[in-house]
């Protein structure tokens, strides 16, 4: 069979959204790849220039459908940096709890989407069943299940409802039991390991140069987590570890990326528990939040998928003059020819699934 280009997408089970991956194959081996984006481009940055600072939190919610709180939080943090707003202690704790709940939901969404990529439909239903638990939890304070708009500039929308801690504890306990059960079905399964081990390898130094961050970089054994390395909210007051895993000396494969996310979920459970223990009383919103800003500022946060960065320029009015979003998936997808080459067509969903694509944030 001669070499040929196959166009996967924009409607393809592998894509997890709307994008096209053109792969050049020689028989079943991938020779070259060319990703194409833009099907979901909503010009968030341009829209943001027309809206006031506090209005933009609805846009940031819609950046990523799997992990909307983390993006709103990144925006709120950047605007607070720009305006010089101090967030009350209790609001920081609540934000941390919400971020970790969102991270759990996002990782579960990823795990559920990854299993059908490997031909394992049951895994999807298991993980999405558990995701429901966390969506229910996120619904309690924010009032909605997908786009929360809970984190606001200067704090959070409202305090946690009564009984939130007990409900969370109950669900976390159930979730921990279930994760242990799933170990037999997934990471101890021979076929699962055959499909994921030694597939989609890249070394840590390659990953840094390609712009890959987050769990994908930690899957290469690099201890780089912005929650520690550029700490925000109260992550430096809490006792937790950066979860890393490597497939070999300095490189990671799909399985190590899978395991990093599973370990991260366990770590998130620990963080949430400790937050509840240490949470002080007090207000949940800064007393004074300006609506105008000038100068420029940026903050970066550890999104569920990697390094999220928002760069804001204000010109003294109540609207941002320029608002630039860095999406971790944008660079990770751009690098896909590097880590797809040499593998089989059947490995494409396995590799592209393991890096956790979210096209909403990628196309902005």
């Amino acid at each position: 069979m001669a070499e040929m280009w196959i166009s996967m997408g924009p409607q393809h089970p592998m894509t997890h959204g709307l994008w096209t991956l053109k792969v050049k194959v020689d028989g079943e081996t991938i020779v070259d790849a060319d990703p194409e984006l833009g099907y979901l481009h909503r010009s968030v940055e341009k829209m943001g220039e027309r809206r006031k600072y506090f209005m933009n939190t609805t846009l940031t919610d819609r950046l990523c459908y799997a992990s909307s709180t983390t993006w709103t939080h990144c925006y709120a943090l950047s605007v607070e940096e720009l305006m010089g707003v101090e967030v009350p202690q209790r609001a920081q704790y609540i934000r941390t709890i919400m971020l970790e709940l969102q991270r759990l939901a996002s990782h579960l969404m990823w795990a559920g989407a990854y299993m059908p990529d490997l031909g394992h439909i049951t895994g999807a239903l298991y993980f999405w069943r558990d995701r429901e638990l966390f969506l229910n939890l996120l619904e309690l304070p924010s009032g909605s299940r997908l786009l929360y708009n809970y984190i606001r500039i200067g704090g959070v929308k409202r305090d946690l409802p009564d009984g939130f801690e007990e409900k969370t504890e109950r669900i976390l306990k159930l979730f921990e039991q279930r994760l242990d059960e799933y170990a037999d079905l997934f990471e101890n399964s021979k076929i699962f390991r055959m499909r994921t081990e030694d597939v989609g390898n890249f070394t840590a130094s390659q990953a840094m140069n390609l712009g890959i961050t987050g769990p994908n970089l930690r899957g290469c054994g690099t201890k780089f987590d912005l929650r520690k390395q550029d700490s925000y909210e109260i992550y430096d007051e809490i006792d937790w570890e950066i979860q890393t895993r490597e497939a070999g000396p300095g490189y990671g494969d799909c399985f190590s990326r899978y395991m990093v996310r599973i370990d991260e979920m366990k770590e998130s459970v620990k963080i949430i528990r400790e937050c509840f223990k240490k949470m002080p009383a007090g207000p949940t919103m800064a007393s004074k939040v300006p609506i105008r800003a000038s100068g420029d500022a940026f903050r970066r946060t550890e999104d569920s998928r990697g390094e999220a960065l928002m760069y804001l320029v204000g010109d003294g009015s109540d609207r941002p003059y320029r608002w630039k979003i860095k999406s971790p998936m944008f660079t990770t997808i751009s690098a896909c020819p590097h880590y797809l080459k040499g593998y089989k067509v059947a490995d494409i969903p396995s590799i592209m699934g393991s890096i956790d694509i979210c096209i909403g944030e990628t196309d902005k």
Partner: protein
Amino acid sequence: MEITKFMKKLSSHKGVSDVALIRDNVVKLDLGKEDSKDFFISLKEDYGFEHCSLISAIDNQPQFELVYHFSVIEGSIFIKDSPKTVMIEIHIFLERDTPTIESVSDLWFGANWHEREAYDLMGIYFLGHPDLRRVLLPEGFAGHPLRKDYVYEIHEEEW
């Protein structure tokens, strides 16, 4: 290398001005357009900034401003008694008539699509870029919509 020492070293580079510490781990500086490539090479090779976080283009009316964010992941620059890693924010100003600059995507592959996006939405031309096409907007789209003088109605029919 401690961050204060690093800042001192930065000032000695050609074209660098206004080196400042804007947060405890973020260094900000202005850079001349002509000396940018040499500076970026030494930033990667000598100081170990492995990761290109973001390239943003701003339309400052009249000139353009490029803001580069680079970060250290495992490099040698550190802050005393802190797990935080160092970032650098570089501002480069471009004339409106010649919005061109040398590409850094051969140094950091992660910069490749950021440059494509800056070209796509703001019309900055990166010299030496291997594949400078539109990335978010469709091929054949007229104009660069994030420019402040962009008017949508003009280009509607062309596209």
